[in-house]
Structure formats: C-alpha cells, structure tokens
C-alpha cells in the first residue's frame, strides 16, 4: 500500500508538468522520496526522487540566472548540454559534480554540445 501511494505521489508531480509553481512540485517529490525510503526495497527509487528534486531546484536557479525558461523538465544530460551550448561551462561543471556524472558521459555530452554550436576550436583543444 505504501508502495502504491508513493508511486502515485511520484506520478503526481509529473502530471502537473509545466506548472509555474515549482516549489510544491519539489515538496511532492521529496514526500515521495521519504515514502520510498520507508521500505528497504526501494532505495533506488528513493534516491532517484531525491536527485530529481535537487535537479529541479538547480534548473530553477539556472532559469533565474540565465532568464531563459528552457531548463526545467529536461534531463541531467540535457541540462549539461544546454549549459555548454550557452557557453556557460562553469554551470555545466557544477551540474556534473553535483550529480557525479561519469567522465565517459561527460565527454560524450561535451563533444555533442560543442559540435552543435560548431565551436571547433574548443573541440580540438579538449
């Protein structure tokens, strides 16, 4: 029952996709995280929910600082790519360390992103 409840909670915030009220969404996800955490079998789900909440916070900050509403609801990889495309390497690095993105994935993302903006010089350098 507990399990079901937490699933519905986890689905709930996504159903309200696109709503400008981010804070209640994050709260909901955190609640789901705690519910997942109550049983032993759902460590993974709990962790994912926790990361999701953190990601949304970060994306929110990024949207405020760049004034572009393009971050929320994209994945971690997409967020990193967007950052690099926008030339904001510091932010990209921050997302990378925050979510412990592996070096392998990081390089793929960087190559793709640099290729998108045709920044061949940077591509060569790295």
């Amino acid at each position, binding site marked *: 029952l507990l399990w079901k409840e937490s699933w519905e909670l986890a689905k709930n915030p996504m159903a309200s996709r696109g709503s400008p009220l981010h804070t209640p969404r994050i709260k909901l996800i955190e609640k789901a995280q705690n519910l997942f955490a109550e049983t032993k079998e759902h460590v993974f789900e709990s962790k*994912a929910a926790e990361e999701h909440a953190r990601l949304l916070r970060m994306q929110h900050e990024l949207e405020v600082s760049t004034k572009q509403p393009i971050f929320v609801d*994209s994945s971690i*990889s997409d967020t990193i790519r967007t950052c690099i495309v926008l030339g904001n390497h510091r932010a990209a690095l921050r997302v990378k360390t925050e979510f412990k993105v592996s070096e392998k994935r990081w390089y793929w993302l960087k190559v793709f992103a640099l290729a998108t903006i045709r920044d061949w010089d940077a591509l060569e350098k790295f």
Partner: protein
Amino acid sequence: MAQIPNLQNGPINLTPIRDQSQKELITILKNIRGKKCLVIDQKLGGSLSLIVQTSVLKEHGAELLYLNEDPLETTCTKVVYLVQTQLHLMKFISSHIHNDNSKGLQREYFLYFVPRRGVACEKLLEDEKVHNLLTIGEFPLYAVPIDEDILSFELDSSYKECVTDGDTTSLWHIAKAIHKLEFSFGLIPNVRAKGKASVRVADMLNRLQAEEPVSSTDTGVPEINTIIILDRELDMVTPMCTQLTYEGLLDEFLHINNGAVEIDASIMGANQQDGKKMKVPLNSTDKLFRETRDLNFEVVVQVLRQKATSMKQDYTEMQTTNQTVSELKDFVKKLNSLPEMTRHINLAQHLSTLTSKPSFLGRLDMEHTIVEAESYDICLDYIEEMIHKQEPLVSVLRQLILLSVTNAGLPKRNFDYIRREILHSYGFEHIATLNNLEKAGLVKKQEGKSNWLLIKRALNLVVEDTDTTNPKDVSYVFSGYAPLSIRLIQHAIRSGWRPLEEILKLLPGTHTESKRSAFANGTLDTLPGGSHMDKVQDGRRSLVLVVFVGGVTFAEISALRFLSSQEGMAYDIIIGTTKIINGNTLTETFLEKLG
C-alpha cells in the same frame, strides 16, 4: 491496388469472417434511418479499413469523422459513435454531447462498443449524465483478417496489460475470437498451449464450448485440426532482434500498419519534394510482394535485379526482331507487372540505404553477440555508450531487454547503474517506464542462473553458416538465429511436446495438450483423433492455427510460412495474433506517458 487483401487463395478461406463483420456493420448503419455521421476512433479506423471500403459506408448515408476532443463539425442530426471500449474515448463523447447541448443542438446519439460494452465505460457516461441520451449497442468485431493467412485480434497492449497491470480482459477476448472462428470452421479437436496466459485461454475456450457448443453436425469435418497457443512471454528474445526479412525490415523502418506503409512520396520516385506522404499497400494480392516478402532482404535485392535484367532483355528483343502477335501479347502481359516492380525497387532501394549504415550493422552485430550470450561485458558497455550518446530510448530499452532476458536479469550493481544513467540522460519521468519493465520481468535484477545457454543449445537456436539464398532452416529470417517461438511450434507439430518436457520446464508457465470432442458430453469421439499427419479427405493438408498471445513479428510469420512450404510438411499454418508487433512497438507499450 486495394489495401483490402484478396483472401481466397489462402490455406483457408477467411472471407466469411470479413463478410460477416462487414454485414454486421452495414446492418447497424441501415437500422439508423437517414443521413448520419459515423464517428470512429483513430485506432479502430485502421482495422475497419481492412474490412470495408469507405465508399461502401458512404453508400449507406454515412459521413465519416474521427473521434477526438474537438467538438463535432457536422450537420447531421444523427451521430453514430463506433469506438473501442476505452475510458478516455468516453470522455470525448461526453464532451461532444455537452458541447452540443450548450449550443442548443438537438441530436440523436448512438454508441456502438467494439467488440462489446464495458461496465466501466458506461459508468463514466452515467457520471457525466449523458448515458440516457445514448442508444447503446455492440459491434462484435473480434478478429480482423490482415492477410490470407493472418488474423489479428487487434489488441495492441494485451501483453503489457497481462504482465504489468494484471489485467487479463484481453485473454477472454482472444478465447471469444477463437470460439467465433470455430462457428465458421468447426470445433478444433487438438489444443496445445504453453504459458500462463495461453493455458487460461485454452481453459476459457473449453468453458465457452460448454456454454455455447459448436456442434460438429453443422459444420462437418473441422477445417482446422490443431490449435497451438503460445505466450509471447516465452520468447522475448525474438521480437527484440532486428528482423531481416523483407517484410520484417519494412516494418522495422517504416512501420507497417494494417497492411500498408506510409512513406514520403519522394522515396517512391515522385518528383515533388514537399514531403507529401503516400500509402503503399502491402499484402499477398501483390504477386511480387507475395514472392519476396518472406525472403531474407539480401536475397530480395538479387531477385529484383534479376527480374529487372530479364525485363530489359525482353525489351531489347522487342526492338530488334519482328514479333508475332502472341509474342507481343506475352510482352504486354509482362509490362503489366511493371508498376509492382517499380514499387518494390523503390522500397528496396530505400531500405538498402538504411541497412548499409554502420550504426545499423553495429546494432545487428551487438544483437548477435547478446544472443550468443558469451561476452556480457562488451554488451553492457555498448548499451552504456548508447545511453551516453542519448540514442532513442526505445532502441536502448530494446537492447537492454535482450540482455536482461538472456541473462535472467542484470547483476544488481549493473542494474542500478544502468537505471541511474537512463534517468540522468532521458529524465526522471522515465522511472515509471523502468518500473513497468521490471514488473514485467523484462529488465530486472538478476535472480539465479540463466538457462538461456541451455535452451539455446537444446533447441539449436544459433545456426552457423546459414545460407540465406537457399534456406534449409528457419534461422534465415534473422541470418543465423532461429526464433525460439518457431522452434517450439516446429516440435509441437512434428512430435508433440512430450520429448521436450525438460526444456519446456525451463520456460515460464505450464503447458497443456488436450483433445476435445465435438460433443459437449464427450461420449462420442468421431473426429479423426489427435494422431499426426492425418489428412482431410479431399487431399488438402490439414490446418494448424498458431495463436500468439502478446503479438507476433513479421519475421516469425515468414518462418512459419517457410515451414509450411517445406516438403514433407503435413500441415498448412495460419496465424492468429493479438497484434503484429516489432521490438519497438512492443517496447513502446511499456512506456508510461506522463503529463
């Protein structure tokens, strides 16, 4: 060329099935006098296009519309809804009615459920306070003949509903469809089923027979001798592999829907570049397609080349020598096949450009490595790289399912790692999809040792040096891998499943083999008993109906056609399926759409 296939040349004449459905539909329309607007849901529209031509519907005074959330745009005062029994469709209908009411429009509403009414749907209509405004009926469409040897029950997500939602409504639907078939072709005396769902279908079939018996006196000798019912769950490896037959590849790349593909007109040699789509029908009425659909694609290219060369030769002969009238006639006859030639050369060319891409070849290579199940780490790395490159999620999941199924799951460490990478790359909303796949046992934590290697060896699934030009074995459809499902059918037909007991135990679910008497009380057993190789009196081969619960791929259909074309084969095979699937469409049913 018509999209509705000609059914008369098949091993069994399925025309009565289609005619009956057509008649029932027309009766519905006739009973509603005057002009009316027929509103159907998009999904059903596809199935209906295989049963009746739109012109026929128009003759009966019907204007056709597709059901969606927009308010109705029609001048008709009578509206007929013809929809599948699904909740979200009910919402559209009630919003239509509310919309009309608010505008003060007076209309008569008729609602026909396909194939039968559902309590939940009617409850929703009651809650919306529109139930009393509707005249409700049923249109019992249980099976649609896709081609002369294929019946589809048109249950798209049956597999997912059974394995993740625990919803087994579709099983009843399948049993009902088979039972309906028995009314036309006689009681099927031998029943074999393997897998949880299939055994239940077999049980239900017996119950239906007890309730509403098909008596053998009405129909004479049963036309179908044996039915083999298989769960898709038994063999999830095959649908996840890329099909390499002509029809299979067409489906993988262009997605064949209701016996036709929709593609850019420019591929078909049209000059305009405006991205216009055109529909190309693909069924056995097209002689050239009939000849090539089941061949390995490599061979198809050769066949087409040969035909083109011989045609060119004929043409040059035409110009140089004097012809007699009969020779001229022959030549013109050959010219008639020209449109078919061009069509398939265009299609084949398009496929060739796609299949020669390194990414495609790499994927094939990986599939074979996974099926061989010898180098697990390489496969895992490959999938990891796919995720990092953010390739389409469905292709990633397809490979992942393949890897998980052949290894009885992934070790916990890898399992969590891959899941985390997927969530990071594609977004956290996909956790629901991953949960569905885990529940279905398709991508899961490793439990115990995998018996895939054992099964693979016992059933000889990986065949070295397969000759695709002159195939001797069904493994040609995947260039070296013989589908597990087909091997099971081969054994079932040849010798029954008893010698295979040990292997069957390794696969999920129980199995049953039973004989049924045409008489409900079971005292008389006048039917040709279950012995193999018995032939129907008039020298025709007896028929086996193979039913796939959860869908079948074109490659498997080709393999079955290949089997029945073999010498020394005592049976013709026809196929029943919940839906024709490929790895992508099957995986897509598990994707949870959020938001």
